[in-house]
């Protein structure tokens, strides 16, 4: 059993607003961890603290420690850009680069890192699109614009783009909220497949999605970690009354 992240007393603020309060939790490597909770509970802020994106917002501040493979990503000599390179992120709304082709979308990260070798690019693009379960649908149209794809395909393209730079962690912020049920189902299959090789942390407001795809579930409420454990236990027999009430729809 090994942990990809060890989060210790993490606090986060937007200006004077205290949005995450003393979060301590460990995130298991090569597993899917879901963060659930009502709107405004701090779910998105929590994952944005895992790749140092929270601090990009003006007035935002973080305290505490987030160990990635044992090293504090908030340590003084840690380069946030290098940290982010290990951690891919997928957002609520698919955001392929609209002026780029499917191929170039996936190759963009590698080119930014100075890789221009055609053979290498071809092979990474194909491998990434295959891993994102998109290759068969786009292999004959790689020069078409990424924006021409359906919403579900665009989201998988964004995942392929993230995979191309060989991250270790994939953070997903409500990745299916703009997708129809069929595209959502495909994405969920993909998430499970990714967990074989990557550590996946997914924020979702869809509790059933958390129940379907995750190995572990954390319930946040008003910036505090209320309950965290195996998804089966959280959904069958939550120990905290707040978790029980949220899951059964008594509030939220």
């Amino acid at each position, binding site marked *: 059993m090994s942990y990809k992240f060890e989060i210790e007393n993490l606090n986060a603020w937007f200006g004077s607003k205290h949005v995450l309060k003393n979060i301590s939790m460990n995130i298991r490597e090569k597993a899917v961890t879901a963060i659930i909770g009502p709107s405004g509970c701090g779910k998105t802020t929590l994952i944005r603290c895992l790749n140092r994106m929270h601090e990009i917002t003006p007035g935002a501040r973080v305290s505490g420690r987030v160990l990635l493979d044992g090293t504090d990503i908030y340590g003084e000599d840690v380069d946030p850009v290098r940290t982010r390179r290990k951690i891919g992120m997928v957002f609520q709304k698919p955001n392929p680069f609209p002026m780029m082709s499917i191929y170039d979308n996936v190759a963009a990260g590698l080119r930014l890192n100075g890789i221009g070798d055609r053979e290498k690019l071809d092979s990474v693009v194909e491998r990434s699109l295959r891993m994102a379960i998109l290759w068969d649908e786009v292999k004959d149209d790689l020069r078409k614009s990424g924006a021409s794809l359906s919403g579900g395909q665009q989201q998988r393209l964004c995942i392929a783009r993230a995979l191309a730079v060989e991250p270790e962690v994939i953070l997903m912020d409500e990745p299916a909220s703009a997708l129809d049920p069929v595209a959502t189902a495909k994405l969920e299959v993909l998430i499970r497949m990714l967990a074989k090789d990557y550590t996946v942390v997914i924020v979702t407001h869809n509790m*059933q999605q958390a*129940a379907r795809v995750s190995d572990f579930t954390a319930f946040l409420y008003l910036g505090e970690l209320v309950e965290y454990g195996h998804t089966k236990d959280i*959904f*069958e*027999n939550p120990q905290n009354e707040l978790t029980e009430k949220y*899951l*059964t*729809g008594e509030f939220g």
Partner: protein
Amino acid sequence: MSRLIDRGLEQLASLLFQMGELADKAVSLSLNGYIEDTSTYEQVQGLSDTLAILRDEVESKAFELIARFQPVASDLRILRSYMKIAYDFARYGRYALDVQQIYEKLGGLKECEDWVKESVEEMSEKVVSMIRISIDSLKSHDADTARTITEIERQVDDMYFKYLDSLMEKAPATNRCTISSVLVVRYLERIADHAIYICESIVYLATGKRVALE
């Protein structure tokens, strides 16, 4: 504001309460008939059939609620427990019918010695009291009430094995009496087991803990 699933859960609870009443009636009628040397076969058969139908209704309704609402936490535990309890109630009815079938085929306790009659009567009373505990704990969803069943179940088990030992020692007057009473006592012991299962379901429903009350 009540939730959409609540109406379905209330309907299920109402079906189960109905099953509890019918199961209690079936077992009591069957055992009283057997002990007092009167056939209640037809009434018990009607009750047993109704219980089987209601069990199917509970299962269908529970599946509908799962499909519609994807219940979790206590809602999920309630559905799982209710389906199990509906089965146990249907088994009460089936064993009640089995007792009456034995009466029809082999007769009751008329030709038995007094100690046999007393044993069967005493065990019957205990088993009916277990059925009532199982129904009460269902109505209240109270794990503490459910747990009180363990002591009576132990007594029923003791009676069952003591009875078998006594049979071996004393050998009642006729073979027919022996066979009849042994079968009935065995059914009583099985009914007691189902009462235990119901109470285990109630403890699970109320606390999330899987316990063995035997």
